[in-house]
């Protein structure tokens, strides 16, 4: 069974602060996705990383895939209240039956 552990589980910060969320596994993934879910909505895809060591930026969000493709991080610079939500990483192993393993989740609250 592939497990994706996220840390921290909860995070409450002031607007303008920086933060990093981690997603770790002992399994190797073909790709890894990050989703954000706001209350009352379904998860929305933020990014997909495919190559070991890959770094992708989405405005103030920076995503990195570990060299061994077992872990990933999400860094938010100068957090805003609109960043509040549940962040989920999801790992995918290509080939055959399509199945994605979702991480344990990080609940972020940005306080004005």
């Amino acid at each position: 069974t592939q497990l994706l552990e996220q840390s921290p589980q909860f995070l409450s910060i002031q607007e303008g602060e920086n933060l990093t969320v981690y997603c770790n596994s002992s399994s190797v993934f073909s790709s890894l996705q990050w989703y954000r879910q706001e209350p009352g909505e379904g998860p929305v895809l933020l990014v997909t990383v495919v190559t070991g060591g890959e770094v992708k930026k989405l405005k103030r969000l920076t995503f990195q895939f570990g060299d061994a493709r077992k872990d990933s991080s999400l860094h938010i610079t100068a957090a805003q209240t609109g960043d509040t939500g549940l962040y989920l990483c999801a790992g995918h192993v290509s080939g055959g039956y399509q199945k994605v393993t979702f991480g344990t989740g990080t609940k972020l609250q940005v306080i004005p």
Partner: protein
Amino acid sequence: SAVISQKPSRDICQRGTSLTIQCQVDSQVTMMFWYRQQPGQSLTLIATANQGSEATYESGFVIDKFPISRPNLTFSTLTVSNMSPEDSSIYLCSVGYRFYQETQYFGPGTRLLVL
């Protein structure tokens, strides 16, 4: 990306009854999935809805409790049967395209409370 709608958006049900949740997509998709989520927590895959054949269930989920239909490439239903308070949760439908296998698009979810 796909636009996905779910009905109902929320419901309050009595124990012992059944509820059918509908998932409609605005385009044909290859894969459709059903998840369960406790508020603020991660997603648990219930089953993959297969068009024209029986759904593929994950460990811990059975067809008698969660019958699934998928009559075509844009529509699926999940029924929660003989409900108990433990079935209170958010039920999410998601879809995937064969070419972009790793990406899933989610519906807004159905919030179910069983009394």
